[in-house]
């Protein structure tokens, strides 16, 4: 069953690496609103010149 310990170790290692990315992201801090997104998806942005095939 040592294979499980190995998997756990690898997961934690990768997770740690991503934690660094997370901390970097916090310093880069950016925010957005939560009103526009649900409304934005309702609008089709396609241009009417559609290629038919």
């Amino acid at each position, binding site marked *: 069953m040592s294979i499980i310990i190995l998997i*756990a170790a690898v997961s934690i290692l990768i997770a740690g690496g991503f934690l660094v990315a997370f901390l970097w992201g916090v310093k880069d801090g950016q925010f*957005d609103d*939560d009103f526009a*997104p*649900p409304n*934005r*998806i309702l609008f089709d942005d*396609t*241009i009417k010149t559609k290629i*038919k095939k």
Partner: protein
Amino acid sequence: MELQKFYYDNKIPKFFAVACIFWGAVGMLVGVLIAFQLAFPVLNFGIEYTTFGRLRPIHTNAVIFAFVGNGIFTAVYYSIPRLLKTPMWSNALSKIHFWGWQLIIVAAALSLAMGFTTGKEYAELEWPIDIAITLIWVVFGVNMFGTILTRRERHLYVAIWFFIASWVTVAMLHIVNSFEFPVSFMKSYSWYAGVQDALVQWWYGHNAVAFFLTTPYLGLMYYFLPKAAGRPVYSYKLSIVHFWSLIFLYIWAGPHHLLYTALPDWAQSLGTAFSIMLLLPSWGGMLNGLFTLRGAWDKVREDPVLKFFVVAVTAYGMSTFEGPLLSLKNVNAISHYSDWTVAHVHIGALGWNGFLTFGMMYWLIPKLFDTKLYSKKLAATHFWIGTLGIILYAIPMYWAAFRTYFMLSAFTPEGQLQYQFIDAVQTAIPFYVLRAIGGTIYLGGVFVMVYNLVKTAKQGTFLAREYAEAAPLNKQYVAPAKAHWHSYFERKPMLLLVLSLIVVGIGGLVEMVPTFLIKSNVPTLSSVKPYTPLELQGRDIYIAEGCYNCHSQMIRPFRYEVARYGDYSKAGEFVYDHPFQWGSKRTGPDLARIGGKYPNSWHFNHMLEPGSMAPGSIMPSYPWLFEKELDINSTNSKIHAMRNMGVPYPEGYEAIAKVDLKKQAEEIAANLKSEKIDIKSDKQIIALIAYLQRVGKDIKMEKKLTNQQH
């Protein structure tokens, strides 16, 4: 800023949509056949490829991974480019993903019919296919994350979080649960044994429901429901809470599949507690979906798409209420191994997954072909047929579950079991007929849809590409003064991926590691010995024929189970079981103590003609086991594989294993001969009898040993 011109590809979504409907119809057709087999065993046709034990995994795999899988990919490949204002990252990867997935489905169907199976429910596919799934899943992930990284829309819409979490978790589940030791091409043994294997398997099984059947379809709901209703989701904040709480709680709930089994008690309780908590996020999501239609209920009356969505979301609410209910130990005592579980999953599969898929197709296909739906009336007909099908499916199964429970747990005033197992089977048969009719009606609705959609496609013109314009993503992002903290994560896909992984990983590790590491969780029973080579071969036949689909090997500590089957099962009995075979449904009786219960001749006759030994039995007969010879050349590598996984066969035993095998086979053949049955000792049935006569026997020796010591 300069606008960039690009296009959305509709070909891949169309391919996936067609595959989804095609495999859906095939999978449901197999489902209808096996439903009728339970009522009319003659429909097993006496052919190995069409027996229940082989077809049932084909049905479950087809509807989960082929029908719902292609449904997920349809939604992903249609919605993600539009949400992120960019084409998919690589068209080549999209194609590889599509064709790779279809090839896997074909390989899965063929190999399962031929009896190549790992014997673990919903993860039956053998190791070469497991590897192929992993590769194609990576292709899908690279394509999805590539698209996210090259997006023109900074914000990640809620649907995308669900897709990301699904991808990550399914990858992890599949890899961890598929650790297997290859014996040969298309044969492997699960690396885990007994209780550990059961825990990993149901951690996988439960989360396959969560992250394959639920979260990606929630993503689908959050995109297609607002689009079809023409209004934004009721509460975007609620969708955020829904997402994080759901993925955090889901991963811990797996042990609720193992209540009252030999799994340590603390793990069972943990599973129950988290299952109950799951009710909150699930219903939050359901209400968010239904409230999206606030003030638009008049549209539901007109639009078949919304009709399907409303019932789908309601079915989601029903099955996520039922799930926590079934996780309560006293309720689970009734439902486990019964038809209740089957009803429960079909409310989810037919209602939630099926109806959400149908709604999406009725909305999407006209869009792709730049036309209107051919017939709203036919779609409405499909809706009513489908709803009727679900009701006719579910109610008889609930009824059957309760009736059989009351029969199987009944004692006479003298303290004897009141009914034989076969009495309960006979009681269930009329309900099985009704269920099969319900399923047939539901499938009929699918064909109505196929006709409607083909007509729709024919009257329109396929839009292979739709052009759009958008500005590239501004590198220098300026944060608005007031914003929700969560929106930060929404713009960081890799971060989201990692956080999902951590959140989900913590849940899994906390549950699994202690069971692996704490030896006292699995008491070693000195009398429990490895299987003999012949028994091991017989066990592989048991697995290949899918016996676990109808028979459990796990006696729960209830008076009515102990009285019927024998002493309740202990964790230490399964330490050499790669894979475990506890099962999840008792269409037939439990087999955990079958060893030594009947003479060899009983098993011989029973496998050839079940009705001759158990009148009224609905078990299929297995004539080919009496024709086919056992492949004894694989014995060497099987023993070798088992020893590598820690089963204590003596060093060098491979060399003499075949001799031992032949000796035991001849003993059984001689024993049968003494009862006037002539059979050669090299047939498969001999090995199967050897295995059945061994199951659950070792622990009886334990009692003798203990008695001697005292």
